């Protein structure tokens, strides 16, 4: 039984790392613009298909697709921003509808371009098992986890130290005051969308490298990212990691100790429990105090 629980914790941790990377982009946009980008999962999926294209057409490792994925996803993210920025009234609600529509368009575009077949990497290196005592993982999963931590660190550094990062935080805090201080809010918001695009691109390529993709997956990715973002507390980068790992571990433990059929239910149960106890999310209250 101990072996089972240890493996569940380890699988949950690795899954949490991948969830965190998928959620980061959504958290950045949500934190800065209070816009829930319901097309975020489709942006991640677009990058995953870029990985598939590079691997299947050129025979290269999907990792080599990251520059292409960044270019494609950032272009798509800029288009999403172009639509959202034109919304003048009730931006929170109207942006939901607009980004949902964009998500549907992206899903169907993916379907038309790449067909409905399921795709997954054929790279033996990425799928190779890495065994540490009683713990089994895939090399790709460990790489995914490492990339997730590195990008989270880079994002934290960017938000804390760079001019644009601080501008993003200033606009998130008070858009009008930031504008009075000479920060162009429109450009700053576009930058946050592009940063989210870069994160989504890395997440998508990583997702293709360890999992199975199909055109309908985008909506499920958005839901997962949204749960983690709210669980974390709006705008909290460490919260995203903690929320994602908690979710991954809760799901894996549920599969091991109860039933695999209850995995999604466990995730939603955790989500509701955290929101009941901490309505601002795991890191929402401390952030407000800060």
């Amino acid at each position, binding site marked *: 039984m101990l072996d089972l629980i240890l493996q*569940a914790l380890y699988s949950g941790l*690795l899954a949490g790392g991948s969830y965190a990377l998928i959620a980061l982009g959504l958290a950045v946009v949500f934190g800065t613009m209070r816009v829930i980008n319901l097309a975020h999962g489709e942006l991640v999926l677009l990058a995953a298909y870029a990985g598939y294209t590079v691997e299947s057409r050129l025979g290269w490792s999907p990792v080599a697709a990251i520059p292409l994925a960044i270019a494609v996803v950032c272009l798509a993210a800029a288009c999403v921003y172009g639509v959202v920025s034109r919304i003048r009234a009730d931006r929170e609600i109207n942006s939901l509808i607009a980004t949902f529509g964009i998500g549907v368009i992206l899903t169907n575009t993916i379907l038309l371009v790449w*067909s*409905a077949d*399921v795709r997954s990497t054929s790279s033996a290196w990425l*799928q190779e098992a890495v065994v540490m005592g009683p713990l089994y993982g895939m090399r790709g999963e460990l790489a995914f986890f490492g990339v997730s931590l590195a990008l989270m660190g880079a994002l934290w550094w960017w938000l804390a130290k760079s001019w644009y990062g601080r501008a993003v935080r200033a606009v998130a805090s008070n858009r009008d005051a930031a504008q009075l201080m000479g920060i162009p809010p429109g450009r700053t918001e576009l930058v946050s969308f592009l940063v989210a695009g870069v994160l989504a691109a890395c997440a998508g390529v990583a997702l293709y490298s360890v999992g*199975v993709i199909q055109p309908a997956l985008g909506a499920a990715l958005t839901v997962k990212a949204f749960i983690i973002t709210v669980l974390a507390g709006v705008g909290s980068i460490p919260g995203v990691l903690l929320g994602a790992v908690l979710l991954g571990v809760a799901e894996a433990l549920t*599969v091991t100790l109860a039933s*695999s059929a209850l995995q*999604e239910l466990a995730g939603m149960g955790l989500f509701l429990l955290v929101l009941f106890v901490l309505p601002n999310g795991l890191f929402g209250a401390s952030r407000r105090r800060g």
Partner: protein
Amino acid sequence: MQRILGTALAGLLAAMSAHAEEFTVGAELPLTGSLARVGAGMQEGIMVAAEVFNRTNGKHRMKIATVDDESSPAKAIAAVEKLASDGAVAITGGYGSNNIAPASDAANKLGLVYITSGGVDENLVTAGRKHFFRINNTAGYEKAALGLFADMKVKSVSIVHSTKDATSSLAQSVQKALAAKGVKVTSHAFDPAMTDFKPVINKIRLQDRPDAVFMVGYENDYVGILRAARVLKPQVKAMVGVWSLATPKMAAEFPDLMPNVYGTALLPFPAKFTSADGRAFADTYKALYKKEPDYLGQFGYVQSMLLFEAIARAADKGTIRKGGIAEELRRTDRETLIGRVQFGANGDNVNFSHRMGQHQGKNIVIVWPPQHATGKMAYPAVPW
């Protein structure tokens, strides 16, 4: 004089009813959403059937009107209603028992025949839909899986199945039948959204320790399960699945995961079609889609061809609008690409029995039943 005129008029009416006509047949299919892949595969078979029928029938023509149900039950109903309002005389298609049930209900209320091979849930044929017909069923898949396990002489099986209706139904019936034969069975239901199967496979590896793993899901599930098994390497003798697994596409897309894996397959790969009907199907399929036909295409072709033939017979008898299509389908007794088809009172094909194939190298070898086997099963053998 009146009698002569009456006879002439009756003759004229009969001749008119027997005239060549073009009929619109509705295809309600999931072309987008989670079932898009299988929906597209079935549509290919439907289009091939229309092409072959229109070329060979020589009299009536079938025009296919397709509406995408987006893999959604509500939209499946809307699709059937739209097709009916556009003049469809019957519906072919449907995928996923969850979508087929409400869609065929809608067709039933409209008095339209609904024929499918996309749903194996037993409720589809026990709910009393008078115009519902199905060419495959859980019993046929169950026979194949049980036959294979009997040949393997397994003592224990772990079943990993999706919680969807059709997959749960098949998993439960196989579990019951295996248990009745004294085989130790453990069951692991999983949510269709599940992607990381390592915790499940770890339970199988450490707790269940079965002779074989039986997977009941769809392509993405199989890839996830097999990949997790490849990492954890449970000490099993066989990995067995059902639909969408022993296909050339899976062999080509996932060459590292498929070796020695078993799945239902009516034909070996490369396919050998010996009948004239089979050759017409395969040649037309390759001409239209520039690839080898798969099982989805075969099923879509057979169900649609049987429907077209029933429509043509009903048209010749002038009974199209009087329930003639359903009547002709009930009279069907015909050898097809999937075997002999006859419909019972509930609309189910009473003869359906599947076969089991195994990925061996780049080929798919039929290994069960013995009378249709094209090779010997590699057992014990797993992909890793």
